[in-house]
């Protein structure tokens, strides 16, 4: 297949294909832990807040480690690790106000944490105990959505609901609300995500599209999903896009906070591309050695989202050994909570499912329930 033998490159008459290949990356904290400034985005919280982020990052990573271990031990069916994406999730999750609403994929354990969801609820899903064990209205955190991209439209619709409820642009900071919709780099290829962009643009919906570009969709690299940098997708739908260092929790926080505020004020949608890296396998079922080289991983390890925050806190003398030790201990307790909670989790009753299909039960399902109950009862003698 030869695509290269062009006699004259007519590219120029149409102008460049996209805005250039080396996009700006908003960064406020370097991999070495140095604070840097950005002309447009400022981080306006103090070191105490950064210590809070540090705690979130470490605990989130511990959730991930423990869940991975539980999966290896057969306690979970599968686990989707967020290793490497902690800053993208904590930075964005912490930028949310209580009245904002987040729509996750299946990997947003850090956002769940920031929204106050007990991580045991996440484990329940991956254990196969339920398909979504929390109430979206508590913590304003939607259920995990596995079909790639589907939630981007739900998020947009929810944002249109906020508009109809009159909680946009009132100027009341306790009231004005926005939506954040998460998805991955691979998801940007799905029709649904692009339709969400259309809708959000046309209706000026109060939504932030938060794309974690972790460079991979299982084994497929980002080059196979888009020829242009992802954040540039937004302009063609009529709203701004920005690329942020997804491993820099300060920058992610600052950019997300500004985009959310923009949405709450009624100025419409924003696409944030958090440039990050999936340091682990796609899930515990995956074997990334089949498709990527280890030096890529190594280069990203140098940009680890947690170590730079620690380096900063240490350099600033904002945190001492006790602080770090305290968090380690908290992490150990959390891990123990997860482990014991997971092992203690009861299986659901197979008879429950018949009542969960509809709000208004049907005679047919009630009959299936009763027949199945009778059927199960018919074995009771045998097994006794």
């Amino acid at each position, binding site marked *: 297949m030869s695509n290269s033998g062009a006699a004259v490159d007519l590219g120029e008459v149409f102008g460049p294909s996209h805005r250039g290949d080396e996009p700006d990356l908003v960064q406020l904290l370097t991999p070495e832990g140095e604070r840097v400034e950005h002309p447009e985005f400022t981080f306006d919280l103090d070191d105490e807040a950064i210590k809070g982020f540090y705690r979130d990052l470490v605990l989130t990573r511990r959730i991930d480690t423990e869940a991975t271990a539980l999966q290896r031990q057969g306690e979970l069916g599968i686990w989707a690790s967020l290793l490497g994406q902690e800053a993208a999730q904590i930075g964005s999750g912490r930028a949310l106000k209580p009245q904002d609403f987040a729509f996750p994929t299946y990997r947003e354990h850090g956002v769940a944490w920031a929204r106050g969801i007990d991580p045991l609820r996440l484990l329940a899903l991956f254990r196969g105990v339920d398909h979504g064990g929390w109430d979206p209205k508590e913590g304003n955190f*939607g259920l995990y959505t596995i079909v790639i991209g*589907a939630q*981007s439209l739900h998020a947009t619709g929810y*944002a249109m*609901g906020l508009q109809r409820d009159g909680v946009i642009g009132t100027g009341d900071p306790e009231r004005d609300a926005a939506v954040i919709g998460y998805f991955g780099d691979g998801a940007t290829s799905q029709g*649904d995500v692009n339709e969400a962009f259309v*809708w959000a643009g046309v209706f000026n919906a109060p939504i932030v599209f938060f794309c974690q570009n972790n460079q991979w969709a299982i084994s497929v690299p980002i080059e196979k999903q888009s020829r242009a940098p992802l954040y540039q997708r937004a302009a063609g739908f009529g709203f701004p896009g920005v690329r942020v260092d997804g491993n820099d929790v300060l920058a992610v926080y600052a950019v997300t906070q500004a985009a959310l505020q923009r949405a709450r004020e009624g100025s419409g949608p924003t696409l944030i591309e958090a440039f990050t890296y999936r340091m682990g396998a796609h899930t515990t079922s995956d074997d990334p050695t089949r498709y990527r080289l280890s030096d890529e991983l190594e280069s990203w390890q140098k940009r680890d989202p947690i170590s730079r925050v620690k380096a900063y806190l240490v350099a600033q003398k904002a945190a001492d050994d006790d602080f770090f030790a305290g968090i380690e201990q908290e992490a150990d307790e959390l891990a123990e909570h997860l482990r014991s909670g997971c092992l203690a989790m009861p299986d659901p009753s197979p008879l429950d499912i018949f009542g969960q*299909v*509809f*709000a208004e039960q049907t005679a047919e399902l009630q009959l299936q329930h009763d027949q199945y109950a009778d059927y199960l009862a018919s074995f009771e003698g045998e097994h006794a």
Partner: protein
Amino acid sequence: MTAITIAKGLTMGLRAAMEADPKVLIMGEDVGKLGGVFRVTDGLQKDFGEDRVIDTPLAESGILGTAVGLAMRGYRPVCEIQFDGFVFPAYDQIVSQVAKIHFRSRGRVPMPIVIRIPFGGGIGAVEHHSESPEAYFAHTAGLKVVACSNPVDAYWMIQQAIASDDPIVFLEPKRRYWEKGELDEDAEPDPLHVSRVVRPGTDVTVLAYGPMVKTALQASAAAEGEGKSLEVIDLRTLSPLDVDPIYESVRRTGRAVVVHEAPVNLGLGSEIAARVTENCFYSLEAPVLRVGGFDTPYPPSRIEEEYLPDLDRVLDAVDRTLDY
């Protein structure tokens, strides 16, 4: 009592639902100023505003997907799919989201979404405008599916569907949109998920829904002339099926014919045949016969009358079951 068409019954029903509950929204392609290509939403945007009657961008997945989000925020979206053949781009949102979210959330998140679909053929249209997709939805656990066949049902059933907290695929017999009937707004309507004997009879039970109810009634009138008494049941609810009146009738007649426009293979008739046989086995004098579209794509409109079940094909099946 006023004489109204099915289309008018739907418009009136939608209006009543919007007046009764400010959370009811209408969304779809051309539902605003145009009032929909069949004018079912005529005048509603003018009276309820663009926030409640939403002309959407042209993408069915977007319509259903944003409806899910609106439902999560407490709204009750009524989505119009312009024609049956255009529901498929929304199929994923319907099957994997709308149908499953109540279950996924263990009942915490209801999905009070109505998906209105003008369905079926017989209007001389080009490809994709005459499909009968009901079996796809009836096979999907988590969806309820109903079809109206007359103006009175149109008026009540759309309101009942909107009032339901479950997602409902609401099928409208597009070729019957302009047929008239008398509406008494003070009468008590039947519940939504109930089938109805629309013509009593003794020899063969004919089961139909949507556009085929009229065809079945025509067949029963013709059969009467030949001394055969057909009992016609308008199913109204396709999922869940309301099986009791069906079984009751078949136990009396011993014979049943199911009629629909959709292809016979795995059409609604197959489920009804299977269940009737299982539940009325010793009453059956003949196998349940099915009359439907052939197992071909919908043909060009110049021959659609040959594809669609008509009075003669229903009578042919009736005769065949009587021959057993």
